Structure formats: C-alpha cells, structure tokens
C-alpha cells in the first residue's frame, strides 16, 4: 500500500508486518518514534507482540537475548549512547548466535551533547559479529528491516542484524513508502536450531576452554562469510516478489566514471546530485553507496582504475575515517595501477554531529581531491 512515512515509522511498520513476537526497547532521540509507534501497534492489536518497556538499553538487548533464546522473532531499536551502553550485550548477542534485529538511529556521542547524525556509534560496533546495513531512504528502511529478519534467522547466518538510519536526516524525514500487504512466505517462521528446549536441556554460554572458544569464534566468521550469499538471495527474492532491487552496495553512474564518490546513508544519496552537477561540468563522476558494512563487500572490481573520494560521517581517532580504511584494506588492489603506482582514495570527514553537507559541498570534495589526502570538512587548521 502506498503511504507516506518517516524513516522511524517505516521501521516500526516493518516490525509489525514481520509479525515480530517480542519487542524490548528504550526510547532515545532520534529513535523514539520507533518505540512509540511499536507500543501503539501492540496496544491497538495491529501487532500481536509482547512489548517490554525496559529500564535501559543494556536491558533492552538483555531482554532480546532472553526472548530470541527461546526461538521467537525479536526486535529492538536504539541510537548513539543507547547503543554504546548496550555494547556488552551487542557482543554477547552475536556470540550467542541470536538472530535479533535492531534499528539504530545514527547519532553523535557526547560530550558535548549532540543529537545530530554520525556513524561512529554503529561503526564502533563493527567487530562484534553483527551484520550492519546502512539505508538511505524511508522505503529502503522498511524493505531492509523486513529482509533483516530473513537474513538473521537463516540457519547459515544466525547472527543479529543492525539497520542504520541517519538520525533526523532519515529517521524524521517523511517520504512516500510502499508497504507490502502480503509478505507470503518471504519471511518463513523462525526455526532457531539452538532454541531453548526443556526436553533437551543444555548449558548455554558455559565456561569454554580456548580450543572450543576459538572454534566458536571461527564459526561466527564463517556465518559472516556465508551471510553474503544469504543477503544476496534475500535481496534477489525481494526484487522478484516485490519489485524493488537492492545490492551489497549500490552504484550510480559508476560504469564510465573517472571518479567515484563512496559514502553510506543519506550522504550517498546527496552525492548522486553532486555527480549530476559534476557531469555537467565534464567531470565523469559516479557514486558507490555502501549498503552493507558487515559483511564488508569486495569493491576491488568496482573501484579499479578510478579516482576514489570516500566520505566518512565517522572517525577512528588515531587511524582515520572508518569507511576509507575499510576500503583501503578490502580493495587495496584497486588502487595500484599497472605501473605499480598507487592512486589512493581521498578521505573526507564530513557531517559529524549532523553537520550540514550539501551536494555543492560534495561536488567541491571531488573537484579538490588529492590521492591519499584527508580533509576535515569545515575545519581550518
């Protein structure tokens, strides 16, 4: 059904349409509408779920762990300080192989208090074993939340999935959205192989010697690796059934591009407008939007021989932009020419704390790119 929705409401609508059984969440700006909308859906009977109004984010993920351990479909949402407050549980939920789905409204961390968009919150969780998607439209937020349940619950994955929406920019924007009236069997019932079974009692998470611990960690890596095929299948089946196509990453005018802008979230959409402007000037620009950060896609072929400008709405202090460093690592060969000379990505740090970044600014980043350089947008040394 064609409707009009905010990014937050899109997530809550997908949670309802997925017939989620347990939702435990704690409100935090700018994610609050997800919690309110879900509480309303449960109160009205539109969603026959148990909504647990927990007292903190550490407990919201704790409650999700308990619920998912029994084998039911489980969801939560958070943002920023809430996400890092539940950090311990983020790691534990992945290590317990629980297919929890969570929406995160990307927001800066304090101090000072800032509620604007920034990716450092979720990207600081990238080593936890959670799959991470970054969405860029209200429609994509709805679609990806639905897909997330199917991907997380797949027996070859059994890892939690985080859907990231830029705080305010996407959580609060209202856009047209087409909801799915009948999901059919796109989302099969949950079938968690290690769900608690009182007829087959066992110890979960007991003391584990190094040999077994090592094996369990390797299993997570294997699940992460196998998740690529599961994501691709979930996206292809989604396109076949519902007509909307998604990839591990999305390319805009990249085929003949000399320079490719790489970004995640709403900045990547805004970059498409910049690419259009640059093309009118004769600069053949394209955009590669990172949709899945974990598992991280192989971008070597996509970026081979191109100038690359990476915009990070995040930073790893002492290293650099997180995306640009992931790309340098995973697509290193793309940046070495036939002559052996390197043409490294130009790193732009922009949009931290909701800093305003326009398509004109992005076009400037491209015009002023320097191989291997780094620019903190708006900061004069």
């Amino acid at each position, binding site marked *: 059904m064609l409707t*009009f929705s905010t990014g937050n409401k899109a997530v809550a609508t997908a949670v309802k349409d997925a017939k989620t059984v347990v939702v435990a969440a704690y409100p935090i700006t*700018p994610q609050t509408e997800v919690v309110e909308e879900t509480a309303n859906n449960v109160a009205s009977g539109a969603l026959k779920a148990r909504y647990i109004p927990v007292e903190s984010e550490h407990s919201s993920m704790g409650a999700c762990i308990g619920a998912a351990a029994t084998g039911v479909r489980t969801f939560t949402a958070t943002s920023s300080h809430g996400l890092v407050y539940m950090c311990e549980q983020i790691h534990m939920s992945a290590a317990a192989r629980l297919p929890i789905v969570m929406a995160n409204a990307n927001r800066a961390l304090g101090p000072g208090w800032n*509620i604007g968009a920034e990716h450092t919150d979720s990207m600081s969780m990238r080593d936890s074993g959670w799959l991470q998607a970054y969405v860029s*439209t209200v429609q994509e937020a709805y679609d990806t939340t639905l897909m997330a349940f199917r991907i997380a619950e797949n027996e070859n994955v059994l890892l939690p999935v985080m859907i990231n929406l*830029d705080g*305010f*920019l*996407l959580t*609060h*924007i*209202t*856009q*047209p959205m087409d909801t799915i009236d009948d999901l059919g069997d796109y989302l099969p019932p949950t079938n968690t192989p290690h769900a608690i079974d009182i007829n087959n009692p066992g110890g979960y998470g007991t003391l584990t010697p190094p040999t077994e611990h090592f094996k369990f960690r390797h299993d997570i890596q294997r699940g992460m690796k196998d998740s690529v095929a599961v994501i691709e299948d979930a996206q292809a089946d989604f396109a076949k059934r519902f007509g909307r196509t998604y990839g591990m990453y999305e390319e805009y005018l990249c085929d003949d591009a000399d320079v490719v802008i790489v970004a995640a979230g*709403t*900045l990547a*959409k*805004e970059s*498409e*407008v910049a690419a259009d402007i640059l093309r009118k000037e004769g600069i053949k620009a394209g955009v590669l939007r990172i949709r899945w950060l974990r598992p991280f896609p192989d971008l070597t072929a996509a970026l081979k021989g191109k100038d690359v400008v990476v915009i990070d709405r995040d930073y790893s202090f002492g290293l650099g932009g997180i995306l640009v460093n992931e790309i340098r690592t995973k697509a290193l060969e793309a940046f070495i020419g036939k002559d052996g000379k390197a043409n490294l990505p130009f790193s732009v740090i922009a949009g931290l704390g909701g800093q*305003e*970044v*326009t*398509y004109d600014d992005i076009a400037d980043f491209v015009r002023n790119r320097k191989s291997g350089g780094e620019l903190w947008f708006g900061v004069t040394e």
Partner: protein
Amino acid sequence: MYEIRLHSRGGQGGVTAAKLIAQAAFLDGKYATATPLYGAERRGAPVVSFIRIDDKPIRIYSQIRKPDLVIVLDTSIMQTVDVLAGLKADGKVLVNSQHPMELGSHKVYHTDLTGIALSLDLVLAGNPILNTPLLGAVAKAGIISRESAQKAISSVFADDRNTKAAVKAFEDMEP
C-alpha cells in the same frame, strides 16, 4: 523541483503542516519529502521545516537554501529570523496575517489562519491549530490541489472542523 521553507514556533504544528503539504503533493501524483530542522523541542521556539516537491524521487537531504516559497505561521518570528534568506527572486511568501504585507518585490499571500482556527474553536493545549487551515491557503496558492489537501487532512484528523478550516482559508485568501 519546488522547495518550500516553513517558519513556525514550537507548538504551532509547523512540522505536521509540512508533512501534510508534502502528503497532499504526493496525493497529486508528485514525489515529495518533508523534513523538520530539529532542535531541542521547546514550546515557542522558532522552528523551520522543509518541503520538497518534484516529479521524480528526491535525493537531497540537506536544508533548503533557495526556496520557491516561504511560509510564515507567526510573523513575530520575522523580528529575529530573516525569513526571506535565499528566497528566489521570483519566490513567493505566504504569511499568517490579517493584513497584507509588503516584502520587497515578492508576491505575498496573506490569510488569517489564527482567526479561522479560533472561529472554529480549533485549539489544542491553548494553541490555535494552524496547520490544517494552512493547507487550504497552500492549495489556493496553486501548489497542491484542493482535493488532495482535503484528503491529506482527513487521513490524519478525524474532526471535520479541520477540513472546514482549510476550505475557509481557501475561500478567504486572495489568489
């Protein structure tokens, strides 16, 4: 693309108004987005919302810098905020005011949204509701259709005084 910047005060319903205008444009068959420029949610503080309307999907998330139309729900804001900032040379202004207003060479619509709301007793927590009559005025300015304005309002508000207010604003405002 048609871009609208809406100035209001916290509690006046400016954010909802922006959503309703975008929704009406969407019902007209256009693509539309509405975004509040957030701040701390305080009663009475100046609030800005953005509406974009286009024939194709809109990929811009940054703020509107060169609006085609500026809407001012509370003219007292004009004492502290330059509401005309960036307004295109042929850009228009719609003010909630009993009296006509001159703002440079810009075409200025005026309508007494507050009076309309009060005449219908459309008051919420002490504030006259301005967003639903505003839709009638925006329709009169030719940005959205009258039918879509009504549909957008009735999809959100069950009380038919809201559509009545919109009709009254549509009829009152000079084109």
